């Protein structure tokens, strides 16, 4: 009987992942043993410290370029940059999640098991402290995302996908108010997510079958093997292309690309707003990180074949996002469609096969994450007695009531519209430039045209806020607590800074833009 040989593990390189997983586990213990009244502070502190520690570890690892734990995890430039981005954005999201002064008890339901719309439900909505399970759930999700962008084989990637998806389904269901909407959103997200996972898994199976055809090499689903198989395998290419298509569908579902975006508006609207922000920023980074790795590393040899199909999806995504945003009447749904359109622009960056394309996409992800979190932070503040006032008609005249927050929101909308001196402009430039160089002018033209369409709904909100008289139903803007203020400041400052001096971050992404194989 031969002795089992353990793979070598580089614990330092895995530290960010391990820290987040550890924090999640400790969080569960805290739920069990710490008295209720201390829990929120302890959990918040624990999650925050863990995230900061993970960020520190990412920074310490900055020069690591290695594949570890038996080839399951690749720690390289894109991994580290994306992990850093996920963690920083997650800190912002955590600040929104932890906010307890804007609404008494926070944005989350106190007892998820209470029947929605019952008398007991109304009682808990009036200020009982929200569930603190959200913190470990969030830590699990973040750990999953960190693995997702570092996964070096398709199975690890699949497991990471599930690890970060399951907590997100739960988080979506935990809104304090409008619980039916929230639970419905969570259920939809879960069912469709499971559906998409099935596609992904089926794709993995097909790819596995395809790799068995390499002469003199065993089958496998690690990216090096897949990469070799694309050029050398003697198996039927139908396996490869069908597998690639199904894998792409699983990932594009998470990235909210059309026609796999259908869940997005409902889920974004139903989920508690901090969670929506978390999904819009961090899930997007994770999904595109995985897309980049799969298509730049595993399937690099087939780029001539997948580019037209993914390009068509990108154009469709931009069109659907931009056109549907025009008639939205709810701010959260509007931002959801904007997020869909942005997925289209990001795909343009993914399809530019150069180093600049990779770095531009990463830049876009980070910049967009800051802006979108700031946008959702403002959404949490505009409220009336029944919670957030998300219907757009309620935002009319907001500029007169609260010029400061209306100005901030205007600035963020201008950033989404890609006006110069905001990060929206530089990041679009960063993905469209490499796409032009890669002769993908049609994608850039579609991107610019849809940006014009998309500017309309943004500016409509701006016009509404500033040029309408405030009415009876115009809500006031709550003064944000320290946590929301911090998140808002980080988001707005980053949006401005990345628009005015994008140099440092661009240098960072360019330096990081190389995968290990």
């Amino acid at each position, binding site marked *: 009987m031969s002795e089992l040989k353990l793979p070598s593990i580089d614990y330092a390189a895995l530290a960010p992942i391990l820290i987040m997983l550890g924090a999640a586990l400790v969080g569960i213990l805290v739920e069990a043993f710490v008295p209720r009244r201390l829990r929120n502070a302890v959990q918040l502190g624990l999650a925050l410290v863990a995230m900061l520690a993970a960020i520190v570890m990412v920074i310490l690892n900055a020069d690591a370029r290695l594949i570890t734990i038996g080839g399951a995890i690749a720690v390289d430039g894109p991994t580290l940059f994306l992990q850093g981005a996920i963690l920083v954005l997650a800190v912002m999201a955590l600040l929104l999640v932890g906010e307890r002064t804007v609404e008494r008890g926070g944005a989350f339901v106190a007892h998820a098991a209470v029947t929605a719309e019952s008398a007991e439900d109304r009682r808990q909505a009036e200020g009982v402290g929200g569930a603190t399970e959200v913190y470990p759930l969030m830590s699990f999700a973040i750990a999953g995302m960190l693995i997702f962008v570092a996964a070096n084989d398709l199975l690890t990637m699949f497991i990471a996908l599930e690890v970060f998806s399951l907590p997100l389904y739960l988080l979506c269901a935990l809104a304090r108010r409008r619980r039916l909407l929230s639970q419905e959103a969570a*259920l939809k997200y879960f069912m469709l997510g499971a559906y998409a996972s099935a596609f992904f898994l089926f794709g993995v199976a097909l790819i596995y079958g395809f790799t068995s055809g390499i002469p003199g090499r065993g089958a496998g689903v690690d990216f090096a093997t897949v990469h070799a198989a694309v050029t050398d395998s003697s198996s039927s290419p139908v396996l490869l292309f069908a597998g690639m298509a199904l894998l792409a569908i699983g990932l594009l579902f998470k990235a909210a690309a059309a026609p796999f975006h259908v869940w997005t508006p409902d889920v974004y609207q139903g989920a508690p707003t901090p969670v929506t922000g978390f999904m819009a920023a961090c899930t997007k980074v994770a999904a595109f990180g995985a897309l980049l790795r799969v298509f730049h590393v595993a399937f690099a040899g087939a780029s001539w074949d997948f580019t037209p199909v993914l390009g068509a999806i990108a154009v469709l995504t931009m069109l659907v996002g931009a056109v549907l945003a025009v008639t939205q009447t709810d701010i959260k749904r509007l931002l959801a469609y904007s997020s869909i359109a942005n997925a289209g622009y990001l795909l343009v960056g993914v399809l530019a096969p150069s180093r600049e394309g990779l770095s531009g996409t990463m830049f876009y992800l980070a910049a967009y994450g800051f802006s979108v979190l700031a946008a959702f932070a403002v959404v949490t503040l505009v409220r009336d007695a029944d919670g957030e006032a998300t219907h757009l008609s309620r935002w009319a005249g907001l500029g007169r009531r609260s010029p400061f927050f209306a100005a901030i929101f205007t600035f963020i909308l201008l950033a989404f519209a890609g006006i110069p001196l905001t990060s929206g402009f530089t990041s679009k430039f960063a993905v469209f430039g490499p796409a032009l160089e890669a002769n993908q002018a049609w994608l850039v033209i579609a991107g610019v045209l849809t940006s014009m369409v998309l500017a309309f709904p943004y500016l409509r909100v701006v016009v509404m806020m500033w040029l309408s008289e405030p009415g009876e139903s115009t809500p006031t803007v709550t003064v944000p607590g320290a946590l929301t203020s911090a998140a808002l400041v980080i988001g707005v400052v980053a949006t401005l800074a990345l628009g005015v001096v994008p140099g440092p971050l661009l240098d960072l992404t360019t330096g990081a833009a190389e995968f290990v194989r």
Partner: protein
Amino acid sequence: MVEQILTIAQSEPAEAVTFATADGMLGSVWLLVAIPLVSAAILLLLGKRADRWGHWLGVGAIGAAFLLGLTYFFQLRGLENKQVELSLWDFMAVGNLRVDFGLLFDPLAAVFVLLITGVGFLIHLYAVEYMAHDAGRRLFFAYFNLFVAAMLLLVLGNNYVMLYFGWEGVGLASYLLISFWYGRPSAATAGKKAFLMNRVGDAGLAIGIFIMFAMLGTTQYDEVFNGVGSMTSTTVLVLGLLLLLGAAGKSGQFPLQAWLPDAMEGPTPVSALIHAATMVTAGVYLIARSNAIFSANETLQLVVVSVGALTLLMGCIIGAAKDDIKRVLAWSTVSQIGYMFLGVGLGGGAYALAIVHLLAHGFFKANMFLGAGSVMHGMNDQVDIRRFGGLSKYMKVTWLTFMMGWLAIIGMFPFSGYFSKEPIIVAAFEREGWTAWLFGLAALLGAGLTAFYMTRLFVLTFHGPKRWTEDIEHPHESPKLMTIPLILLAIGSVGAGFLLATSVPDWLTATNGLGGESGEHAPVLAHWLLTALSLLVTVLGAGLAWFLFRGGTATEPQPAGVVVTAARRNLYTDAFNEAVFEKPGIFLTRALVFLDNRGVDGLVNGLAAAVGGGSGRLRRLQTGFVRSYATSILTGALLVVAAFLAVQAGWLA
């Protein structure tokens, strides 16, 4: 004819221009721009909180800049290469275009810095009192500081883009300050007029900069000047004409002179600082700075000289027919800048003469504008000189200081105008052939006319019988804070001319191209004869005015002959602009609006309706049912798989 002119061009190749790097004390030369800018920002951002002390901050900022300017000036004096450059950061780097955010401190820039901050400081001080009763005083000082910052940037930039940056900055400040009392329709209109006419000139300057970049690939001064020799003479001519258009727009020269007199709608300190002493001389600065370009083409120089001569005569003639004290001074500004253009157009040693006249003019014109402000202050804001008279008894300080300015501008010995204007007249006579007579006599005639209308202004205001409106009983002298700047400027009007004329030309030789020997030719008349002649026409003009107006004048407009009527109507230039530009412009606008409403808007609205309609229809697909979502995903998945397989089978490729 044209070809002949074009072939004459291309004079001697200029020596290579090199700038030293600024170090030591001069490394902080950026502070000159930063201090007023920060002060302006503070005044704008703090809002009402700064109302109580804001004006003193404004004054202090300019005072500090002046002191700094002085120390830099003395630093520069000790240097071997008196052109020091300070590159701060890359302003823009797009493709081949690299623009440096850099400053150049050289003798030319140094004298401008001293003029802007020195005279600027005195006028700021004056404005503290002048604007004391205005609710918007803090805002006024914010704009004023913004102006000084932009003007300093204009003269300190080390490339044309920086110059353009400052150029637009002073344009903005000028617009804001002309229409400072925007409640008055006339002030709002004047602001717009200034802005629009300046746009015409600015467009010329911008296109000129584009040409530089297209031809030479750079906008840095040194590289452009060194590269002038490599351009064809036609290119140099076109480039020069475009720069001249910019200069004419900013300096109120023909054909873009009409905005400057209207700009007097702004508060009087604005007229004194921006529309007399500093900003309007930016055109002269531009030409003097670009001397390598202008000296390289004789046709170009001829155009500049012609513009200068024509404008100086126009200004004199119109100025003689105006009755508004500030407008007379405004037209005299137009006319005096005409002299400066004449000087820079003559080239060679006359560049320095023009700069000397510019500096001297800065003093005496600021002096007179502030004097006019002081008169208005004491006379309930009356500006009609037919309604003054006999004020010498009531406003002793204003009277005496204004007298210094008056004697200076008409070029009376030994006041400063004599030392600065007379050499330009002589230089005009030093040209070749018949143009010496043409431009020389124009300059001489201008001197006589200047003496006439300025004396008319002076006599009608301060002497003769009182013709005041009923509401004025006791005109009063202005407070100390207003008279002290007047006195200091009057001292400048007396003494500056001699000092400047003897020192500045030597000092300026260190700036490339400004050190040429004056006139290769002897003047067509003897020098002493020209001096005597210019003094004679001055005395004649002044004497005639004294004779005609010592007894006062009618308080109502009088019927007049052809010339005076034309002059009252600004020589029909406004009517010309209206007929040639405004009317067709209005028609064009109407046509475009029609086209826009029917054609473009129709298309755009149609598209928007299509998008909106499509959006409304697509929205219905978003039913909210998971089953329909799943179907949509499945359909998408089937399509994607099919597409991949189609690609693989080669159907789509």
